[in-house]
């Protein structure tokens, strides 16, 4: 019997490709955690604790900030962890070639990268929950909202990862530094992470700008499940926008991946 008569090992191959990425992450765990934790920790500490203690921001600001920072970390974690390795893989190291030569359809190799970026984004977001509660002592999280929070985080990380694949496959390694600054900085500050979006009605033009940033819907979704008393965009709308944005970005990213993978 020929190898071609056997069923293609698609599921096993996908699991192996994902397994490879998880094994490598496990080995680099301290570096990974440092990469995703330091910046949000300082944001939380300075904006949520120091400025609050000095009286520059109100006492309730921590409740606004924590869901936003978790959302930011999940989204940007997914984006960075997909975009950066991809630019390297397609230029210098070519390490991904072995996976492109496996009997896994190229789209699924791309999908694995998005799934893996999502996992890293969720970890980056999830570790912020206990740390945030520790730093912002007046912030609280009802145990019942933990699972919904993880679900919103996962969706946010997925959108971030899919956007990361679009960026990572469209940009040359020489351009990645510039693109990261040019893309990430506006994304981070127009994503309703440091303020609730409905509160922007006094600044309508900025409200519109924020409305086109998918990160806004992650932040607002996190607020909807963590601190529902703060005015927020309805959860169903957040989930809908994120699902559509994720699907569109994933499709565009996988096409970009296909163009880079096969000449």
């Amino acid at each position, binding site marked *: 019997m020929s*190898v*071609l008569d056997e069923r*293609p*090992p698609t599921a*096993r*191959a996908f699991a*192996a*490709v994902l*397994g*490879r990425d998880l*094994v*490598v992450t496990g*080995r680099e765990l301290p570096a990974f955690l440092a990469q995703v934790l330091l910046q949000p920790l300082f944001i939380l500490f300075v904006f949520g604790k120091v400025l609050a203690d000095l009286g520059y921001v109100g006492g309730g600001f921590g409740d606004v900030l924590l869901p936003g920072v978790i959302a930011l970390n999940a989204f940007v974690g997914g984006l960075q962890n997909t975009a950066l390795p991809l630019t390297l893989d397609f230029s210098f*190291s*070519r*390490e991904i*070639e*072995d*996976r*492109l*030569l*496996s*009997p*896994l*359809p*190229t789209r699924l190799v791309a999908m694995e990268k998005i799934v893996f970026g999502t996992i890293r984004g969720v970890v980056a977001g999830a570790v912020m929950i206990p740390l945030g509660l520790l730093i912002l002592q007046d912030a609280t999280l009802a145990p019942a909202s933990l699972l919904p929070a993880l679900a919103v985080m996962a969706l946010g990380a997925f959108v971030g990862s899919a956007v990361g694949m679009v960026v990572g496959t469209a940009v040359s390694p020489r351009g990645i530094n510039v693109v990261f600054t040019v893309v990430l900085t506006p994304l981070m500050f127009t994503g309703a992470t440091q303020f609730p979006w409905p509160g922007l009605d006094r600044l309508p033009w900025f409200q519109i700008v924020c409305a086109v940033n998918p990160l806004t819907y992650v932040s607002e979704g996190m607020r909807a499940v963590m601190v529902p008393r703060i005015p927020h965009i309805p959860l169903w709308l957040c989930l809908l926008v994120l699902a559509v944005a994720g699907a569109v970005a994933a499709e565009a990213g996988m096409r970009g991946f296909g163009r880079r*993978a*096969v*000449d």
Partner: protein
Amino acid sequence: MNAVEVENLTKKYPGAPQPAVDSLSFRVNSGEVFGVLGPNGAGKTTTVGVLTTRMRPTGGLARVGGVDVAKEPTRVRRLLGVVPQRNNLDRSLSIRQNLLFHAAYHGVRRAERRRRAGELLERMGLAERGDDWLDNVSGGQAQRVMIARALMHEPRVLFMDEPSTGLDPQSRIFVHACVRELKERGVTVVLTTHQMEEAAKLCDRVAIVDRGRLLALDAPAALVRELPGSTTLTLSFEPGRAPDEDVDAALTAVETVERVEAMPGGRVRLYTSREPGEVLPAVLKALAGHGIALTGLDVARLGLEDVFLRLTGRELR
């Protein structure tokens, strides 16, 4: 059955004035070691890229193991192994993990992939280095790891792109031994090279390509044999007695001599397609009566390199 079939294969990169591969056709028999020989930029790597599903052909047909590479790339990848020109090993993994994960990507079961990895590391002389990282391996060792990796899913056709470029002589000899061993095991090997010696030594048949086109295809010895004047006889004479025009004319008149060339130091080189023993009596007879004494005779055969240069020209590119 043909292990590889290429029919009118064309690949044109966007923006390039000339196609990299231009209506190329050839077939590789099952179990054969097949060489694709050509200067840099001849289209060798592109041809291998299409056959290994990493590039989409612009036109024509390419099959590996009877499966169309453009239509069913995922199926084809189960049949073929690739040893690339550039090191693309996974530097985040140890040597053994490179092999194990490769097999896992191909759906090989855990116990089986451990067994194969142990066996291949042994065969490649890397048994002691399995748990090492790739940071400190030499070019030759990396090449052996890549060969071992490509064999982990037991491919039927192995593609090797410039397998010994940049290797030291020991590693090159090892790679050559590997190719022979694979042939004995019934694996079809398609290798690209611009090293004539390597092609002549390893390949059952050689396709010479240039500018994306096939120039010649045959066994290396046959290619040399078909080259006009593939054997040379170089005659040396007593010092001070250089052969004159009469001698030249007499030698040119010998029917089996195709060309006469004057060499430095009064020597004369004769080109022939016949066996030297067949030509020599007539040559000696032609020299007789000219009062010139033969002091030395060198017999040489042209090699694949001469065939190659004849077909692809001498200019640098």
